[in-house]
Structure formats: structure tokens, C-alpha cells
């Protein structure tokens, strides 16, 4: 490892020692942060994976039955049907701090009244595929929303973990060894010059 290009003086030694202790403390803190982030990430990512698999199959099914329903009906009817959505979902989004990573927390409000939750449409302009499709969509909604929150969180955490890991490694394998080596070098140089001074003094004394 290359040592830093500094003069071997006492002042430099003191500064370097201070820097080394800061670097060590930073390394420990970052390492702890990384471990905790990793622990939380692994918990989340497993859930993420399961949820996505589930949501994907359910959504595809719902969409397929909708396409089927749409093929059997006049397109105008369908458009009329969905023109005014019977329910609405509103989203409250605020930030949560997980180990200094800002992640979104999503709160959903479904304001469908219990009585009229069913989409009202006539028998004439609809078919049973449409019923199934709507049922399946409503069924998957909750999971879809949960997936959104978890997936975004995982995304942000993965970025942060990568960054933290780089920092930890840079400190562990570059900064700290460099400081240590330079401190050792200065120490040796100072000791050497001290010995030189003593020898010189003894020689001078002998001459007299």
C-alpha cells in the first residue's frame, strides 16, 4: 500500500493520528448501518418477490377476462361503463426514515361505500366475463398497492446499500491502511532522527 506523501514531522503525525481515529469511527458506524440495512432489506425483498409473483398471475388473469368481455361486447358499452368510476382510491404519501434512507410510506383510502360497492350496470350491456374481471380486479387491488410500497422501498434501499458498501470498503481497504502506514513511517523517521541526535551529542562530549 502506498503511503501518503507527507513530511515526517510531529505535527503531521498528530494530524494523521486524529484522522485515523475519525476514519475508524466512521468505518464502524457505516458498517453497522450496512448490516442493519441489509437485515431489513432481506426481510422486505422476500416479501416483494412473493407478492410480485402473486400479483402478476392475478392481474394477468383479470386482464384476460376483461379482454374476453370486451371482445364480446360493443366497445361503446364498455367505455360507458367505465366512464364514471364507482370507487376512488386516494393515496397519502409521506416519508419514513430507515437508517437515513428516505422511503415512502403509502396510505391508501378507499372511499367506496359498502352499499354501492358493486358496479351498477345492466344485464343487457354486460356479460359474465365482465363480472369475473371486475371481481378479480377488486381482489388484486390491495396486494397491488402493497407491492407498490414494498417495491419502491426495496429499490431505494438497494441503492443505499450499494453506496454504503462502497464507502465501507473504501475506508477499510484504502483510507485506513494508508493512514496506518504513513503513521508508522513518520514514527520510524522520528525515532531514527532522535537516535542520530543522541549519537551526535555523545560524539561531541567525547571530543571535549
Amino acid at each position, binding site marked *: 500500500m502506498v503511503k501518503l506523501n507527507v513530511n515526517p514531522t510531529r505535527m503531521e503525525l498528530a494530524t494523521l493520528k486524529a484522522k485515523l481515529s475519525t476514519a475508524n469511527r466512521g468505518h464502524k458506524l457505516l458498517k453497522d448501518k450496512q448490516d442493519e440495512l441489509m437485515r431489513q432489506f432481506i426481510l422486505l425483498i422476500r416479501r416483494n418477490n412473493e407478492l410480485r409473483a402473486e*400479483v402478476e398471475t392475478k392481474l394477468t388473469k383479470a386482464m384476460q377476462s376483461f379482454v374476453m368481455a370486451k371482445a364480446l361486447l360493443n366497445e361503446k358499452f364498455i367505455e360507458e361503463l367505465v366512464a364514471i368510476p364507482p370507487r376512488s382510491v386516494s393515496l397519502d404519501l409521506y416519508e419514513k426514515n430507515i437508517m437515513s434512507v428516505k422511503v415512502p410510506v403509502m396510505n391508501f383510502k378507499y372511499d367506496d361505500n359498502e352499499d354501492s360497492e358493486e358496479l351498477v350496470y345492466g344485464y343487457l350491456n354486460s356479460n359474465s366475463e365482465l363480472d369475473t374481471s371486475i371481481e378479480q380486479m377488486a381482489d388484486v387491488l390491495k396486494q397491488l398497492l402493497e407491492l407498490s410500497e414494498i417495491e419502491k422501498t426495496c429499490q431505494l434501499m438497494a441503492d443505499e446499500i*450499494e453506496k454504503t458498501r462502497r464507502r465501507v470498503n473504501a475506508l477499510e481497504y484504502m483510507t485506513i491502511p494508508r493512514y496506518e502506514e504513513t503513521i508508522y513511517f513518520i514514527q520510524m523517521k522520528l525515532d531514527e532522527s532522535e537516535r542520530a541526535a543522541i549519537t551526535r551529542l555523545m560524539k561531541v562530549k567525547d571530543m571535549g
Partner: protein
Amino acid sequence: MAHKIGVVGDKDSILPFKMLGFDVFFASEAKEARTTIDRLATENYGIIYLTEPLGKLIPDTIKRYDEEISPAIILIPNHLGSLDIGKKRIQENVEKAVGQNIL
């Protein structure tokens, strides 16, 4: 703060989302999808669902919003089935964070 939820994709697949109360935007080309997403991002949309075939065409647009806390762009399959891009993105995250695929 109240945010809205948008869906971008081909008409056949995303029309049913309208019944759930989401805002639906049709797009069939990459350019259309890109401008729609950029517009929605400035218009206080918290989640944007994007169908995978379109997501495949505009990976850099998705990446741009990855680092931001909102909007969350979530890939969904369309009626032709999943292209596994969403799954691949999860795997990429795992690899990025852990160093290898542990799932």
C-alpha cells in the same frame, strides 16, 4: 399530502383499472409513454403503473425515477402475460445490495 395513482399502457389491458378509480392513460409507443410518464411525474402522481411491453421500450426513463422517492414506477403485466421484467428488476436489486442472487 394527497397523491394520485396513474396507469400507463395499452388500452385493452389497463381499461379495467379505471373501474378501481385509477387515472388511466393510453399509450402504444415509446415516445407517447415517455412523455406521459414525465408529465405525470410533475403532476403529483405518487404511483405510476406501467405495462411491461412499454417498460421494455423505455428503460432509461424508468431508471431516472428509480432514485426518487416519488413517483414509484411499478411494472405490471399486460393481458398477454408477464414478460418477467418486473421480476428481473427485483433480482437486480438483490444482486446490487447483497452481491449475489439469494432468492
